[in-house]
């Protein structure tokens, strides 16, 4: 059991007998009422989304999740194929629920996979990753109002606004939480 005050984004809970992951969390102290945590929960089996508000003085059952390292192999129509780094067992993770994370998954790289019982439920991506720029217009005059940036496309399909000196083939560091350009990487 955990206290609702410890609930964070990514916490997995058993709620009404079903496993859920917290996708949004906000503490509310109305002052005239008790303190609550307002959450959006994603069902780990069906992907359906539930909104709840839980009193922080209650307790909630935590889902027993663990992680394993696995290499990302390739994507099919609706699933991502991985191989366990130790047992070499192959398994898939559904596209449903990964959302923008797919832009931060590179074939051949190893990621932490979050497991609930025998079901892989989420992929954990590092806070910052290096991506290669695959499409960039040369000589675009930057939008001077926003500080001279232009949009480019990276190897994973992610579009990023970058400074105008970035060229096709450059490697750039991207923040996976905000999707923002951090810096050019020399390697």
């Amino acid at each position, binding site marked *: 059991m955990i206290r609702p005050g410890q609930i964070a984004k990514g916490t997995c809970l058993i709620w009404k007998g079903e496993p859920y992951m917290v996708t949004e969390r906000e*503490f*509310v102290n*109305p002052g*005239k009422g*008790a303190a*609550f945590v307002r959450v959006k929960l994603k069902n780990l089996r069906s992907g359906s989304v539930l*909104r709840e508000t*839980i009193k922080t003085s209650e307790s909630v059952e935590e889902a027993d999740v663990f992680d394993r390292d696995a290499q990302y192999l390739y994507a099919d129509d609706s699933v991502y194929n991985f191989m366990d780094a130790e047992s070499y067992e192959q398994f898939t993770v559904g596209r449903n629920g990964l959302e923008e994370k797919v832009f931060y998954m590179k074939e051949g790289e190893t990621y932490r996979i979050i497991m609930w019982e025998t079901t892989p439920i989420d992929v954990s991506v590092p806070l910052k990753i290096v991506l290669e720029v695959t499409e960039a217009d040369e000589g675009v005059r930057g939008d001077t109002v926003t500080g001279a940036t232009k949009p480019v496309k990276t190897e994973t399909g992610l579009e990023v606004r970058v400074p105008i000196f970035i060229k096709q083939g450059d490697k750039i560091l991207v923040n996976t939480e905000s999707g923002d350009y951090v810096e050019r990487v020399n390697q």
Partner: protein
Amino acid sequence: MAQLRARVIAETRKFFDQRLYLEVDTPLLAPALIPEPHIEVFATEHRNPNGNADAGVATTRRGAARFLIPSPEVWMKELLTAGYGNMYQLSHCFRNAESTGPQHSSEFTMLEWYTVNADYMDSADHTDALLEHLASELTDHRLPRPAQLSADRIRACRPPALRLSVSEAFERYAGIEAGAFDGVERMREAAASAGLSVRPAGDESESYDDLFQRMFLTFVEEKLPADRPVILTDYPAAVPTLAEQNPDTPFARRWELYLAGIEVANCYSEERDPDRLRSYLQYAEEAKLRALVPHPAAKGLVAFSSAPACSGVALGVDRLLMVFTAAKDIREVIFSTTFGIFRSPQADRGSE
């Protein structure tokens, strides 16, 4: 940000001074407080070198107990009882043990004002006037325009506020009918059919108050319009407060102001009935037995029954600044060396 903060405070003073409200400046430390079951306080003590505790004041092992005020209400109500009439105060306030979040700081600045011979809807008019005053003064083109001011947000703060009762809001935004407010059983049925997890029928351990708050927070609050001020009126009287009850209805004469979706102020037609004041004190003192930081109750509250009829508003100044500047975190608008003075939003992205 420092200049904008100063201007908002100066314009607020000008607004009330022009209307002949008395500015008061009451202590931040109090020996006893009006108990609020859902607010935790900071406790300290006054150490008297002669070893004598103050007469009639709770003592700790080392001295006379003192508490940092969670709002200046305890003092301002004494002044109202003493006949000082319309008054306002800009005061630092302290709340302990609140979950940290972008809209909460354990120390914050509150604007609190009381208007005598007025009720909560009169205060709603004054609030519209205050918002109009601030919006027009801050955008006065003869003065330098503060860089942080968000033009969209100032537009969204222009009165008149949309006035909507809580039961209308439940119906409009969540399709929950007014019958849900007729007692805990009906509220629980409404919560269950809206999809909240509730205790089985017959299990009375979840109060009407908690059920109402969960319904409001899950289905209504986030749907309130963000492009204009909203004054949400007539909360269920079953949520215990010091607001008067609207006779013959299950609702209390109180409202909360939402700006850009953020709760910024609340207002009561202040309860003066001596029996109801006493029963509130009794309820709140009992609830306070479970508090993390217990404190003595300000019994003088019962004397408020001899004060003139009045309406009081408490408005969070920092939250108002957050709204005006579209700041995402209250620490961006508060002077603080702990957080870095006027912390920039990028400073610790990802720490949440």
